[in-house]
């Protein structure tokens, strides 16, 4: 049955984040702003973050895209809030490894983002899942320059 395959992709956690995204909005006095899009499909994200003393104090996003990209953005902001820049970057790296089917450090607490692992089986959708993480990576790198 095809919908069983679909269930691997659209886990209830993902649909929950899609339906009721966390941290949707814009931080007015943000220290970092990133606009990123996926030119092959038109997904866009506007990410604002408050980074102080090497820690992500706050993160909010706005954007338009499919369930995977928007759920991933919601999870990303939820996960990185309060984390050090270093930890946030290592999470992004883990996500990237999960998507590519590479080995990854399983000692890291993944929480909701574990649900994104099903995306790896849908190669055409990997870019949807990684968009928000790439935006975050670019943002914190820009901030630390």
């Amino acid at each position: 049955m095809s919908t069983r395959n679909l269930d691997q992709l659209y886990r209830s956690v993902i649909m929950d984040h899609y339906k009721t995204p966390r941290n949707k909005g814009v931080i007015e006095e943000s220290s970092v702003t990133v606009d990123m899009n996926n030119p092959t499909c038109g997904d866009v994200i506007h990410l604002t973050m408050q980074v102080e003393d090497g820690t992500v104090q706050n993160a909010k996003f706005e954007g338009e895209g499919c369930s995977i990209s928007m759920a991933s953005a919601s999870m990303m902001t939820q996960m990185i809030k309060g984390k050090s820049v270093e930890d946030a970057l290592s999470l992004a790296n883990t996500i990237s490894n999960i998507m590519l089917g590479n080995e990854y450090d399983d000692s890291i607490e993944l929480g909701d983002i574990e649900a994104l692992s099903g995306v790896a089986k849908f190669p055409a959708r990997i870019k949807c899942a990684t968009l928000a993480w790439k935006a975050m990576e670019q943002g914190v790198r820009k901030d630390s320059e």
Partner: protein
Amino acid sequence: MLNIDIRKHFPILEQEINGHPLVYLDSAATSQKPQQVIDAISNYYEKDNSNVHRGVHTLGNQATEAYEGARDKVRDFINAKSREEIIFTRGTTTSINIVAQSYGRANVGEGDEIVITHMEHHSNIIPWQQLAREKGAVLKFIDLEADGTITLEKVREVVTERTKIVSIMHVSNVLGTVNPIKEITEIAHENGAIMVVDGAQAAPHMKVDVQHLDCDFYAFSGHKMVGPTGIGVLYGKKELLNKMEPVEFGGEMIDFVGLYESTWKELPWKFEGGTPIIAGAVGLGAAIDYLEEIGLDNVEKHEQHLAEYAMNRMSEVEGITIYGPLEPEKRASLITFNLNDVHPHDLATVLDMHGIAVRAGHHCCQPLMKWLDVSATARASFYIYNTEEDVDRLVDGLRIAKEYFNDVN
């Protein structure tokens, strides 16, 4: 409707995708290839392969005949006056870029105007943006009507005596609109401008007669008309092509080469620098043979019928929005749409899990997406091998997607 046996000519359609028989509804992106085109290409490599225009040996001759024979087929296919007017390129994009870089650079100056529309594909926008920036020219857009059509009144408002180039797609790859190219060409000519036509979505589906249209350039691709990728055509009026400089220099396109100066071959070869896409041209020739055996009239009739059938069936699905003209006689056989609460990428994944291939995204038309006020859409596009059953499968798939997303929501 065409005979159902047409499907059997396309070996790729016989497979299952994700446990379901394949329903291929992405022919506007690229069409599938019939066995006789695949055979023509392998046959060329098995029996005739050699470089063209230089071999004294027999194979060199056979390859040249195959390549130049394909040019004659293209000439006949679009009813060009002479074979010198048919230039082989890599595809529609390259064809339009040749016009922009050669004719455009020589004839467009500061303050001159280039006119396109809001519905153009990126390949008919960016070459003109670049030319306008380089020359200080003005890029102007013809506005669309609410149903995604162009009126001649609007064309007359935008095209002026300062307009040097008008470049418009024959058929929209998103809206399906068939544009009145002959009439727009007249308006361009009245104002002293040349007319360039992006025919990528027209040549595969309808009889194109460049002399009747009277356009100055006509660009199209082989891979959307059952031919191979990597081969396309630029048709140009001989008197214009003769005055134009080549854009690629090197082997194949030269006449005499000195240390500091060289001269070019005559048309069409002066625009075909380097060893050409010989097998691609042979494949395109075979594609034209195939389409002409079926008859372009029959292709058109079949697609008209499918478009109308699909329009009716898809409209039954609750929450669907269909873009472009709603009257089937005003449009080509592709339907771009959105389904309430299901993002097009999610929809395309659900359909793919049921063996149905559709396109999702901006279809290389970001300005048009802005005009439609959407970030992405889904598109089902039909060709000779599609059937009513394919449309039925699509409609079932849409219902499944809706239910699935309503449930998980």
